[in-house]
């Protein structure tokens, strides 16, 4: 195997472009913030830009991981932002009603109430999509709009603040020198990967998303799988909701998780999962979410004026998406490839599995 073939195998890996973009974005920060990569230990806690990116990106990663599975079944879930708000509202209002907000059992119960509500939202979405056959974008629009109303109903239209040390830990606390949310995210990602790849769930989800009718005829209970996936997505959004409200010690029915669904969808797409459904990549989604969070951080550190930062974000996203398109890469970088014999053509479909690439190097 030659160096070029190794390089090809690397560039054709499905995580190559997302990771490349992430690294590039991180490097952009260095001229503006020379100590961007430095991490300091203060009071037994690690601080630094990288730590903040992971800390502030945690809710997005959670939501995006759930979204990945929904998108893999060929659906989409617009309601995650509202679910974030509902969970935060229910949990905070329960905690704020307690005489002693620091009681562990009460905090656990409050979180349980919030998460159950989230899962119920997911059940409703799944029911509408899988049982009633409503288009996912419409079905989840219902909770996207109505859910904010529910959250406000719970909080009486107010911003509920809590003062609970144990609750503060989830989104704002530290454990073993790292933000506690990092552990939550790691646990959820690990559970998701295990759930999809250690069992056959991932295969069945990809099958349903790849060809729904063929999946029905092969005996896959796609209704059940879809409902499960929507519930899981809502659960992830619920945990994100706990994190966000814990970080600010407040539940804001109006603004908590606002537009997070769009960032999450974007993260999934940057991570290489097709919106058409089928194959998905949890690892890609995590990188995608980190790209978006890094982008947000970068906008602040390089001092893009606030009024133009959405335009800046859009421009970067367009570049990322173009870089990921094999067609675009063939057009732009194709001329260079012509020099190498018979190596210029980009595959018609997205990058092949990494282990398939070396087999092409037959006679060279």
């Amino acid at each position: 195997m030659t160096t070029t073939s190794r390089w090809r195998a690397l560039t054709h890996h499905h995580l190559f472009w997302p990771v490349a973009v992430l690294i590039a974005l991180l490097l952009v920060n260095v001229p503006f913030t020379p100590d961007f990569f430095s991490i300091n230990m203060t009071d037994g806690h690690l601080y630094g830009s990288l730590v903040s990116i992971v800390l502030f990106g945690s809710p997005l990663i959670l939501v995006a991981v759930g979204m990945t599975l929904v998108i893999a079944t060929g659906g989409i879930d617009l309601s995650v932002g509202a679910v974030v708000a509902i969970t935060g509202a229910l949990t905070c209002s329960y905690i704020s009603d307690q005489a002693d907000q620091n009681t562990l059992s009460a905090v656990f119960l409050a979180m349980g109430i919030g998460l159950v509500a989230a899962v119920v939202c997911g059940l409703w979405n799944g029911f509408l999509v899988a049982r009633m056959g409503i288009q996912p974008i419409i079905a989840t629009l219902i909770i996207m709009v109505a859910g904010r109303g529910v959250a406000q109903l719970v909080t009486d239209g107010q911003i509920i603040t809590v003062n609970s040390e144990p609750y503060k830990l989830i989104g704002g606390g530290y454990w073993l020198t790292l933000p506690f949310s990092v552990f939550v995210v790691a646990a959820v990602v690990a559970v998701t990967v295990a759930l999809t790849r250690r069992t056959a769930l991932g295969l069945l989800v990809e099958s349903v998303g790849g060809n729904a009718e063929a999946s029905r005829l092969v005996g896959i209970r796609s209704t059940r799988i879809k409902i499960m996936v929507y519930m899981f997505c809502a659960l992830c959004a619920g945990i994100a909701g706990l994190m966000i409200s814990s970080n600010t010690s407040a539940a804001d029915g109006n603004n908590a998780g606002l537009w997070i669904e769009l960032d999450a969808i974007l993260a999934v797409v940057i991570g290489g999962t097709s919106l058409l459904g089928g194959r998905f990549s949890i690892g890609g989604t995590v990188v995608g979410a980190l790209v978006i969070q890094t982008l947000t951080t970068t906008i602040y550190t390089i001092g893009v004026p606030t009024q133009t930062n959405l335009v800046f974000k859009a421009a970067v996203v367009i570049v990322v998406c173009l870089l990921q398109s094999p067609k675009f890469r063939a057009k732009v970088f194709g001329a260079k490839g012509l020099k190498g014999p018979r190596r210029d053509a980009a595959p018609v479909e997205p990058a092949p599995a990494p282990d398939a690439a070396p087999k092409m190097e037959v006679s060279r």
Partner: protein
Amino acid sequence: MAEPQPVLEMTGIVKEFPGVRALSGVDFRLFPGEIHALMGENGAGKSTLIKVLTGVYSLDGGTITLDGESARFGSPLQAQQAGISTVYQEVNLCPNLSVAENIFIGREPTRAGRIQWKRMRKEAAELVDRLGLDIDVAAPLSSYPLAVQQLVAIVRSVGTGARDGAGLGTKVLVLDEPTSSLDRDEVLELFRLMRQLRDEGVAILFVSHFLDQIYEVCDRMTVLRNGTLVGEHLVRDLDQVGLIELMIGKALDQLEELHEHQLRSDLGETLVKAEGLGRTGGIAPFDLEINKGEVLGLAGLLGSGRTELARLLFGADQPDNGRVTIGGKQVSMSAPNDAIAAGVAFCSENRKSEGLVPDLTVRENIILALQAARGWTRPIPASQRDELVARYIKALDIRPADPEARVGRLSGGNQQKVLLARWLITQPKLLILDEPTRGIDIGAKTEIQKLVVSLSEDGMSVLYIAAELEEVLRLSHTIGVLRDRRLVARLTNGPEITTSKILETIASGEHQ
């Protein structure tokens, strides 16, 4: 004898897909005024070669020379503008528009930005007339049968590139399986048009699975096997047996074997029993029994209810009335799961839309049915899975023999084998095969038919649907005849049953 200059010359064509080398150094040439057949089994590289030629795929190596000049097509449009037109198996036209509009779509004659409708109709009528066709160009395309639509597609493509609509701009016309859904008279009309175009100097590349048609209309043929060139021959120099041997790369003895095979006569007890099973708009209520180890063939015209009957037996559609017992137990048939649990497997005639998940790998597609039956919580252990998949890839000779290859990349015959493997792995009691040999080459066809025979010998019941009566007759113990969505007769196969006898039954609608 000095050979004329070829209009198209492809040299050393290479096309690779991840893990697959679809074409390795294929040479191909096409002379003006000839009908040239491109022959080969499924997966031999015919479609890939055509797609490289017409700009659908980019080239990984080799050169294309058109009219003596080097050419490279980045898109079908570029190829079209250079004078290479293609008509595919499925008609890609707009049925709601008129014939004239379809012929001129995308290159309507305009003046000052406005379409000159009158001129368009006039020129379309002239073109149709000149090609000896009797078609009213003002009528909507949908008012014509599929065969005529196909002819319109050809008229459209030979008209492309013509500057004033009068001449033919096309130098090369590619016809990819244009005859697969036409009846005999329609095929003759198509051939007449092809011959006329040939006589006007158009080079025609013709792909068909029907060998008789090749010998009827073609002048020269190029044979591919496994992505390499096997030979180029004048049709009159190579007989059918020789051609088939070239295509499959082995002698015909193995094909003969099947013809001499004796159907197993000692059938087991009743396995499947349907009573009054029917569905409004699908098929009238029918009674049916299938014994263990029996091959029940269904014969009937397209749309006579063959597929509908099969789908009811699988629970793919829900019956309005009647009941099904399998192995003595009643099965509700409210969903495919019920039938699968009772040991029924169903290979749909629509491999792509109802069978495979193109994005998934060969391995994933093969284990899908078994995994679905086990549920998501009990994955098949990796070692057992790999062993099963390897065994079936080998047994059915799936190519490429790479479990990681994406199914969407495989040829039709190999996709069919993947589908078969998926169900065989579940060890069904009744295997329903709906048109398993459609659109696949003679080698794979024979393999699949041999497989059916051996499965039946091992005690598996098979419901076999095929448009070719010979195929049904060869394999079946019993033949169910359908007509107008009704099961009209059940014939026990024997020496007195012939294709003409079956045809008579279909025609008369009753058992004689």
